């Protein structure tokens, strides 16, 4: 009869549901007590590909403007001028508006040296929009010029290695 079947089903399914919920008393919670009660900083647990706040290694920036062109929302502005005397590219300005950035990663893909890349830093809260503007060039610097063969400068070499690690992680084939 429907009447008693309803009662039976109600009791049986509630019994089953209650046993599932009770079993969770014997399982460990899965949540992380961010930010202060974590054994390791969350940033250190993030994968290599994590797209956090952008960073630029000026030492290996070639000033090619590929990232500026690739950015769909124009949050990167670069002023690179060719010095008439030394015939070198000089970076006068390299600004990224982190407040505008949407962390898509399209800028780091075409970078020839991996100079612009995402870090695992994601804590970006601040009190003003102005402080979200990252100005990487403090004083004009000479752009990096890729060498034939391996990098010899002991200061630049590790940075370049890191940059290339980001770059080789991308799937090959995008360029043409």
């Amino acid at each position, binding site marked *: 009869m429907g009447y008693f079947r*309803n009662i039976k*089903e*109600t009791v049986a*399914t*509630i019994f*089953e*549901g209650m*046993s*599932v*919920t009770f079993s969770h008393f014997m399982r460990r919670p*899965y949540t992380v007590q961010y930010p202060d009660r974590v054994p390791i900083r969350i940033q250190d647990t*993030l*994968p*290599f*590909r*994590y*797209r956090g706040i952008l960073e630029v290694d000026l030492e290996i920036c070639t000033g090619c403007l590929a990232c500026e062109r*690739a*950015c*769909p*929302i124009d949050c990167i502005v670069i002023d690179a001028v060719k010095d008439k005397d030394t015939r070198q590219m000089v970076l006068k300005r390299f600004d990224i508006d982190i407040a505008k950035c*949407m*962390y*898509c*990663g*399209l800028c780091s*893909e*075409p970078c020839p040296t991996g100079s612009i890349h*995402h870090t695992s830093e994601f804590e970006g809260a601040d009190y003003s929009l102005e402080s979200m503007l990252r100005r990487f060039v403090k004083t004009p610097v000479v752009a990096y010029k890729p060498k034939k063969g391996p990098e010899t400068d002991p200061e630049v070499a590790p940075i370049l290695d890191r940059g290339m690690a980001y770059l080789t*992680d*991308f*799937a*090959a*084939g*995008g*360029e*043409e």
Partner: protein
Amino acid sequence: MSLGGYDVEVQRPGGLATEEMTLNMGPQHPSTHGVLRFIVKADGEVMREAIPDVGYLHRSIEKIAEKVGYHGFMPYTDRVDYVAAMPCNQGWGMVCEKLAGIEVPRRAEYCRVIAVELNRIASHLLSVGSMGMDIGAYTPFTHALREREYINDLLEELCGARLTFNYMRIGGVAWDLPPDWVPKAVAFLDRFEPLIDEYNALISYNKIYVERLANVAVISAAEAIDYNLVGPNLRGSGVKYDVRKDMPYSVYPEFEFDVPIGTGEVGTVGDCFDRYIVRIREMNQSCRILRQALAGVPEGPVLTKVPRKFKPPVGDAYIRLESARGDMGWYCVSDGSEYPYRVKIRTGSFTATSIIDKVSRGVMLADLIAIVASFDLVAPEIDR
């Protein structure tokens, strides 16, 4: 008031003087799934009509597409449906590839399928979880989100983001599968599959839950097709149609999987419970696809050479793919320039919202919540 072409007359036996109440549900209501508003005309607890008012999340993504170019639009597609961004990525990739006639490497197709199916599970988890929450059971929601977090971890390792993936590119995917990633994904499936059964034991077949959903908002197959319901909503009405099976794309023909449909096991075919249980079963099927895909990832490149200044020939293309919310249509017109001439995204939530007005007549106020949840509406997808 005449809205949507229907005039509603309130019939009252005996002339009991009651007043119709206009309730404004949303945009700040707890269970409107994003930003969605219903103008509800209710007679006590019984609704006369519920007129959806959409547009609160309209970000003019289709207009943006005309300004940012083919490559630059990829991250915007994440924002079309942020619960299941991978299918949107794939949709944009597919429509551009169809326009330009680009062949995607097989390994890239496998990567896409793996990412999309993981994302589909994540989206369905959110859907069934929030369904439980809307019906008043909070525990299933956290359990579902807990498993979703694992998927997010996996996708984060794959593409560096948890929500707005931007994983795919025109002609393939941006990153190859990371080393040691495949065993992790298999381990997740091993963990997750029994938890679907646990989830069913906890909530799906709970009598109260079943009673809340069975026979509510029954949509017949003809009605569902007429209103262009897609995906699990359509299959809940008993129409066996899945783009992955019926208009195969990518490498889906290589996988074995079933298309679950609503059978009316606790009520009528096409009720809220059918739409719900179809999603649960689709998670099982996605696991099946994932196991096959993860076992058989071929070697090779994951991205073809596509010019950075991507200029497809003049013409138009329309593709369908099965996103988490069903048959998603991407229509793109190219005028041969660097920028798409026109992009139209036909999403499942948009058409599902249009039927709410029809099915919500004469049901209880609490049922509207169940109806909205059962359609798995995602507000940004409605408004785009």
